[in-house]
């Protein structure tokens, strides 16, 4: 330690480098702060005009200039939750298979392919949603669900194909690589001795996974899921293309909805009235805060998981 400090004093280059990096690194949090400040300033007219009502009304009428974020917040949250409900179990079990059961070669190839899903541009997911997923949902899946589970409000209404369900499924596929690769890291970091201990107690393979791996990694898994949720909340293009874009709050998964990011992408370019622009930016502010909170939660969980590990 002492030696290093001495060297730093002698070599000016190190010092400059230190300050350079420090400046760059502190620039990024500053950027975050500036974005928040910009959104707040730009949305000030509507914050002033509508106040808290903006958060709790679902009316969105650019002609009459009534604006409320509720329907979009509903669309964002529900579509993301559907994505988690479908994507999280799939990802966690995939990760479990890859770390615990698969041979190393299979794990490598399959892991690579799963991560490749993250490399597909979201507009391609959107096109796939429109041309492949939506017709399948409209012709086969939704009529079937309507017939068998139609007594639930979730599965009522005409099958359009595009809508909340389609958006949730597309999002699920998009968040699978995130959750899978983080879960894999979590499972890998579970000490081998835990598994051996469980085996020594006579646990079966499934019990080893359940007791030693899943339980130990549970906070880490939760963090992985929340990271996936953060990704789903902010996704714009693919969702816009398949969700049907209707500012409605409906119990049915078949009905069209709209998300916060998609309404901004949809309406910003042609918004001419100052109030309309400010309202769109306030949606941006709400979305920013929401994803910020979700991502912070994820950090805390992952951090707690790794803290537990280093304390071992």
């Amino acid at each position, binding site marked *: 330690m002492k030696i290093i400090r001495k060297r730093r004093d002698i070599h000016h280059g190190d010092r400059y480098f230190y300050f350079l990096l420090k400046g760059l690194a502190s620039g990024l949090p500053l950027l975050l702060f500036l974005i928040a400040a910009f959104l707040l300033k730009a949305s000030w007219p509507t914050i002033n005009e509508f106040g808290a009502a903006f958060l709790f009304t679902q009316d969105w009428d650019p002609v009459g200039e009534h604006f409320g974020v509720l329907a979009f917040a509903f669309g964002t949250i529900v579509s993301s939750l559907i994505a988690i409900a479908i994507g999280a179990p799939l990802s966690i079990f995939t990760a479990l298979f890859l770390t615990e059961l698969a041979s190393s070669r299979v794990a490598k190839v399959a892991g690579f392919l799963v991560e490749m899903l993250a490399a597909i541009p979201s507009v391609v997911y959107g096109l796939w949603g429109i041309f492949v997923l939506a017709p399948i949902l409209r012709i086969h899946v939704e009529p079937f669900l309507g017939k068998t589970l139609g007594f639930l409000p979730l599965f009522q209404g005409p099958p359009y194909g*595009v809508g909340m369900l389609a958006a949730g499924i597309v999002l699920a596929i998009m968040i699978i690589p995130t959750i899978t690769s983080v879960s894999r890291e979590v499972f890998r970091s579970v000490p081998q001795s835990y598994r051996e201990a469980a085996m020594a107690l006579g646990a079966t393979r499934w019990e080893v996974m359940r007791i030693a791996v899943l339980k130990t990694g549970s906070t880490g898994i939760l963090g992985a899921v929340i990271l996936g949720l953060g990704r789903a909340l902010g996704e714009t293009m693919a969702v816009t293309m398949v969700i049907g874009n209707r500012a409605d709050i409906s119990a049915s998964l078949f009905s069209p909805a709209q998300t916060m990011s998609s309404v901004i992408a949809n309406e910003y*370019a*042609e918004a001419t009235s100052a109030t309309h622009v400010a309202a769109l930016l306030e949606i941006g502010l709400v979305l920013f805060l929401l994803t910020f909170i979700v991502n912070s939660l994820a950090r805390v969980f992952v951090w707690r998981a790794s803290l537990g590990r280093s304390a071992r």
Partner: protein
Amino acid sequence: MMNMMMKKISVLVTTLLAIQATVTIAHSAAATRLTGAGATFPYPLYSKWFFEYQKRNPEAEINYQSIGSGGGIRQFTEGTIDFGASDAPMTDEQLAKLAQPAFHIPTVLGAVVLTYHVPGTSTGLKLTPDVLADIFLGKLTKWNDPRLTKLNPGVSFPDTPILVAHRSDGSGTTGIFTDYLSKVSPEWKKKVGQGTAVKWPVGLGGKGNEGVTGLVKQTPGAIGYVELIYAENSKLPYASVQNAAGHFTLPSMKSVSAAAAGALKTMPGDFRVSITNPPGKDSYPISGFTYLLVHQTVSGAKGRTLVEFLEWAVSDGQKLAEPLSYAPLPHSLAKKVEATIKKIQVK
């Protein structure tokens, strides 16, 4: 090792310098560079225009960003661009915010067509204004509704629900369509109104013209509105609509130009007018201008180039419109627009 790297770097630097040099030369040939931004709808034509115009006049380089009419008006108001472009004319309120007065220069016309996907029917659907309004208001919900079957004798409509498809993104196309509905239906005007984005009573939203054609193409029972060229390109049928004179007209270059000519008599000097539902038996009722926004006083070589370009665009440039499915300005109107362009003062 070090040597090799140095060599590589020097090669790279020389290449970059060479590229830079060529780019600079290419740029210095164009003495005047104009920037504009705005409407996406006329973008294919505008980029063709700027390209052709530069061929004739190598001095003029025009850079256009299709960021949407709203963005075009905003940037024009802030004075960051030399000219703006918008599908809808600026409102009085917006004009009041300008630092210096501006002209609206109509360049071409676009038609909004009703495209549909009804199993068992093909082309030739006929719609009246009130049926159309009631469909989009959600009051007419089945294809075999008596009002539709009466209007289209000989067509056997299925017992399918009507699915309305509209634009989810703000758009000049929506502006024209809702303007038309507001004119023909008091109920629409009261409940929904006119705008580039409105609160739709029913239906699904698709992003862009492609999004709406996609929805219509894939969903049996769907009806949606798109620009003419998109319906033609995706081989979807489109309806003929009853015009103000009571005739059913199909959208075409001719019927759209006729609409502009029909609206000519009542057209104000600044061209800020909607030409939906105009008089004239050949007029297709749902169409609109797209405009360039230009200051009334422009300066220097830039200003001269801009005026010369506008003069060319409304005369010879009009010939390029039709191959790209935009309706050219009718001759009588083009003369009027030329007179306005002459009023632009170059300092």
